[in-house]
């Protein structure tokens, strides 16, 4: 065992001391692209990269999307790849702070990314440096089944405010349709509902303060968010805690539910289920506090170079390749999402066009997502609280007390 340890240490030293041996032109890329569309997009990206750099062989390890979030902590410390998928904003902060991602500001500077990826610069910057390259983002909003609207006799265009939405819900209920569906088994889908209610009730700055730990969970403004949420609970799919987001997609597809607060990545699943551009609708989340600057939710996905990468030079080549406008255009065409590069063109997909329009006119700000803006522990406790609230709204005060306790500890 000792010999093995010595050997391992020796191997480690060797790999650090001699960064890129000539024959070592291999890039190990760990990705969470397990769903069909991302998988296809990444396969294509890697194939194109290998065509452009025939001397580099990219080894892709695909992880299950949910499992990846756990796995990354393990492989970063123990068995590091050269490239890894992750997310922008606070979600990358823990890794940056302990030096698990390397500074790639040079890639930004050399390739003019400050210009072309400017819209995502702030969410990629910590301590004035850039720690990865963003390649896609996508809007969240309300996706709905137009047939269900027709059946219940509701005109989607008439929904402007949250109160409009709630009165529409009554009509859906009368028609035997769940007004709002979601699957909270994996918790995160309902964080989107919370975020939007919060952004519409209190605005972008409040969202950022809350996720940065500057506001108590027992604050009245937080309670106001839950008061709005309580209005829609009677019209929400009852078994949401038992199902995953894909199951909730089926509810929309089958018309047993009308609306779904979800990210644009779900469009592929809706269409797989049989919906088309004719009966799948998209609208921005309705207004709550009148006159509030409109903020939207659009998480950014990124690729980073771990500190333990063995082939940093080629990894930087890969990031530069990924940042280019043509690559982002092509990739996002497959992903069905929005490119970050300002020189890229957005696909002619109606949902993307609507999302792009919505995001580029959002004057309040663009939030990443609750579990990307808040630190992991707070995010987990928060989302569990949201789920409990949805099932047992009467426990709100206890839940907020508990979250406050977590906040005090996490941000100490």
């Amino acid at each position, binding site marked *: 065992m000792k010999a093995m340890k010595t050997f391992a240490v020796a191997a480690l030293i060797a790999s650090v001391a001699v960064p890129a041996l000539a024959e070592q032109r291999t890039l190990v890329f760990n990705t969470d692209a397990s769903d069909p569309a991302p998988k296809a997009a990444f396969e294509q990206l890697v194939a194109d990269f290998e065509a452009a750099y025939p001397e580099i062989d990219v080894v892709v390890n695909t992880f*299950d999307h949910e499992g990846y979030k756990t*796995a990354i902590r393990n492989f970063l410390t123990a068995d590091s790849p050269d490239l890894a998928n992750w997310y922008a904003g606070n979600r990358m902060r823990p890794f940056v702070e302990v030096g698990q991602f390397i500074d790639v500001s040079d890639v930004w500077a050399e390739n003019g990314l400050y210009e072309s990826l400017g819209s995502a610069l702030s969410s990629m910057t910590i301590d004035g440096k850039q720690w990865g390259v963003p390649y896609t983002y996508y809007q969240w909003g309300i996706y709905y089944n137009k047939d269900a609207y027709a059946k219940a006799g509701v005109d989607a265009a008439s929904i402007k405010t949250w109160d409009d939405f709630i009165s529409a819900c009554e009509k859906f209920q009368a028609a035997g349709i769940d007004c709002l569906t979601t699957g909270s088994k994996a918790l995160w889908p309902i964080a989107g509902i919370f975020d939007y209610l919060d952004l519409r009730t209190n605005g972008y700055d409040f969202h950022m303060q809350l996720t940065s730990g500057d506001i108590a969970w027992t604050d009245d403004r937080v309670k106001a968010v839950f008061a709005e949420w309580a209005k829609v609970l009677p019209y929400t799919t009852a078994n949401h805690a038992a199902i*995953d*987001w894909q199951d909730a997609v089926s509810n929309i597809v089958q018309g047993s539910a009308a609306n779904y607060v979800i990210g644009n990545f779900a469009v592929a699943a809706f269409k797989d289920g049989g919906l088309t551009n004719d009966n799948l609708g998209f609208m921005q989340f309705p207004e709550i506090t009148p006159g509030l600057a409109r903020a939207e939710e659009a998480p950014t996905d990124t690729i980073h170079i771990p500190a333990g990468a063995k082939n940093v030079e080629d990894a930087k080549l890969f990031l530069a390749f990924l940042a280019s406008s043509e690559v982002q255009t092509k990739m996002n065409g497959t992903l069905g999402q929005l490119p970050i590069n300002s020189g890229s063109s957005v696909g002619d997909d109606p949902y993307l066009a609507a999302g792009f329009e919505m995001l580029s006119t959002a004057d309040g700000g663009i939030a990443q997502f609750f579990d990307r803006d808040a630190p992991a522990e707070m995010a987990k406790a928060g989302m569990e609280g949201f789920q409990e609230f949805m099932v047992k709204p009467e426990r709100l005060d206890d839940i907020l007390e508990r979250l406050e306790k977590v906040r005090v500890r996490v941000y100490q």
Partner: protein
Amino acid sequence: MFPRPIQSMSPASKVAYKIALPVMLVLWLLPLLGVAMTSIRPSGDLAAGNYFGIPSRLAFDNYLTVFRNTDLERYLLNSFKVTIPTVIGAVGLSCLTGFALAIYKFKSNLILFFIFVAGNFVPSQILMVPVRDLTVSMGMYNTTMGLALFHIAFQTGFCTLFMRNFIKALPFELVEAARVEGVSEWQIFRHVVMPLMRPAIAALSVLVFTFIWNDFFWAMVLTTGAATQPITAGLNSLNGQWIAAWHLVSAGSILAALPPVLMFFLMQRHFIAGLTLGAVK
């Protein structure tokens, strides 16, 4: 014999018993049968709400789909790469330890024996953080060997208990006779005791195979990704991808369960002997 043999009862009870047997069995295996049925149901049936009726056709191609679209092969292979070395390692080591603890009388014998026994019952969680670090520092994190090494060590506890009790039940005179002949201790182990241990080795191998094949916790702790993860962890991540695709989840589950089930049916006698002999002495 208890209860009273059915043969000595009234013809009516005999018939009742013969009917009750299959009925009970079906009830007992109902969840499993449901999954087996689902695994050969075409996805169209599920979409159309035909969950329990007669499948519109027998979609054995679900099994092909599972192989074609996922890393299932890899996961199964990894499982073998973890399980087989563990069986060899743990059974081999415990032949030695079991022999030492059963044959020799020395002061700390019983204490050592009970340390092995107690260690075997320790919750995995108390070992998790240090074992993960140890594996990382040996450069064996995320390798099938790293996982197998831990399993070998941990299973040695149970296997030692088993082997020691088995050898203890062998006639000690054989060892004494050999010693009088001047046979060396190693030769005694190798040529006197080992041949008699064959049933124990067989039983233990089957048991350890099943335990390790079915391990999930350590696979999650010590491996990540399809390159190294065994089928249990693989199934967990495939389950994350196959949401709402129960025909695939079912087919994958059945494939994952197959090796230990085959092992069980082929080696049934050894398996049951192992479960009961090692523990109940």
